[in-house]
């Protein structure tokens, strides 16, 4: 058990946004983790981007899903009742294209969930997205606007792309964020070596980015709020690296594409390991 933002979590193993839908396909997994971060929710429904949406790279992948989601209204009506039955904390990943979007989504969600993850870091949409997260002023404005409209814990999800997470993170905390999560995906492209055409331009994730994620997590860990470490986590050793770097908890992302049951195994192993180290201390 750990306590963050004044509320208890079963364990520090969370599921990152966008790689597990709404946690309903593998409920036995969702029920075991400390928290689930939902797929990004926008104000209006979004069809997402045309294929190809995923391209594999060395020890990772680039995705360009484009925030496909049913929009906040359908989410609240059809999905939220099911999500609420999950035996884990649920944080909704909120993705807006204007400050107004963020405000409206947050108001509609009200306090029916455990917390909010403010996504100012999605690289796969034309408007808003990562641009909001690259400018400390705008990131702070978004955070402030959300803060005014909710008493729930507010986590801001930071981008590592072309801006310093320390600066952005500090601005968001000053504007009322309770915690930070990072990293969102890293800008990445792939080309067809034969035709020269671009195959994809999107966000890079997976073990490839783990060292960069550790760097970023460590950098913002001085800010004094809980940090959720994300990026290339696949093993208990990876979890421990992130905790060493200063994270209070971690979220598993791409690894779920390789194995949706992975969190169960990590949680089990982590318990064994920490029992062992407790006994060793006796």
């Amino acid at each position: 058990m750990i306590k963050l933002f004044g509320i208890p979590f079963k364990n520090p193993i969370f599921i990152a946004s966008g790689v597990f839908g709404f946690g309903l396909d593998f409920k036995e997994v969702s029920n075991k983790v400390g928290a689930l971060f939902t797929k990004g929710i926008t104000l209006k429904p979004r069809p997402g981007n045309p294929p190809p949406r995923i391209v594999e790279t060395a020890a990772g992948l680039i995705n360009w899903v484009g925030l496909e989601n049913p929009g906040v209204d359908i989410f609240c009506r059809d999905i939220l009742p099911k999500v609420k039955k999950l035996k884990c904390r649920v944080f909704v990943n909120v993705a807006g294209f204007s400050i107004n979007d963020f405000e409206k989504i947050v108001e509609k969600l009200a306090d029916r969930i455990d917390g909010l993850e403010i996504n100012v870091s999605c690289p796969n949409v034309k408007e808003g997205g990562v641009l909001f997260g690259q400018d400390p002023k705008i990131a702070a404005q978004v955070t402030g606007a959300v803060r005014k409209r909710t008493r729930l814990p507010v986590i801001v999800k930071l981008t590592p792309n072309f801006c310093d997470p320390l600066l952005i993170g500090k601005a968001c905390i000053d504007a009322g964020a309770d915690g930070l999560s990072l990293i969102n995906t890293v800008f990445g492209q792939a080309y067809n070596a034969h035709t020269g055409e671009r195959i994809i331009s999107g966000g890079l994730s997976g073990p490839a980015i783990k060292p960069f994620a550790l760097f970023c997590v460590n950098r913002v860990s001085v800010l004094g709020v809980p940090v959720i470490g994300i990026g290339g986590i696949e093993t208990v050793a990876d979890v421990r690296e992130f905790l060493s770097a200063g994270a209070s908890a971690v979220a598993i992302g791409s690894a779920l594409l390789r194995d949706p049951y992975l969190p169960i195994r990590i949680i089990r192993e982590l318990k064994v390991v920490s029992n062992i180290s407790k006994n060793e201390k006796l």
Partner: protein
Amino acid sequence: MKPKLIRAYITAKKQLNPDTFSLELKTSGLRLQPGHFFEIRTSDTYDPYLNRPISVAGYQRSRLLLIIRKAGRGTTLLHEKNTGDRILMLGPMGKGIIPKKKRTLVIAGGIGIAPLYFLAHNLTVGKIPFSLIYGVRNHGDHILISELKRICSDLILVCERGAKKKVTALDVLKNMDLAKYDIIYACGPKAMFVELQRMKFDQPIYVFCEDFLGCGCGICIGCAIKIKGTYKRICIDGPVFNLKEIDFNV
């Protein structure tokens, strides 16, 4: 059936043509239909990173048959495995189909034969008469010919290059009396699907789609295909779709 993490031993490996081989894996207790596939881990390392989707080509007495073409890095690593090696995989995934009792035409292009081999088997078991047109690129590429002959009374093997009669599966199709069939199943390269779509058949035609997947189990939304104007997921909503409803010009 919900996908599970399965560790299965290779009980047999056969080279079927220069770049296609089959693996037989021991794994029990599954209920499998054509269309089902497994996501195979090709390496213990992070490179290749993602699993590779491979169709169920057969399942009998706890023996799962996979037919695999060496297409790139992952399938080449699979080709290096041997009898006795253990393979990690997730599945079954996708929606399986139960063939209708209708006069059936099956069209296979290249490695597209893999899921259709299972379909052909089930048609035979279900005593549903069918014809199979099976086209390949080069002479010698046809696989499992004697097995196919055994189960299919009307087998048409065609070859694009290197054979005496150079024809494609679609050439054959154009010269056939299609009124004989109530339903068509096809699997092959995307170009073949696009061509089939242009031919505007009267009867329903179902295609087994093979694209690059992320997770294979619906959680990443990475496998979009436009069906009647909205995106569906190949892995969960398919991989078998009504060809007439697919919008390839996304």
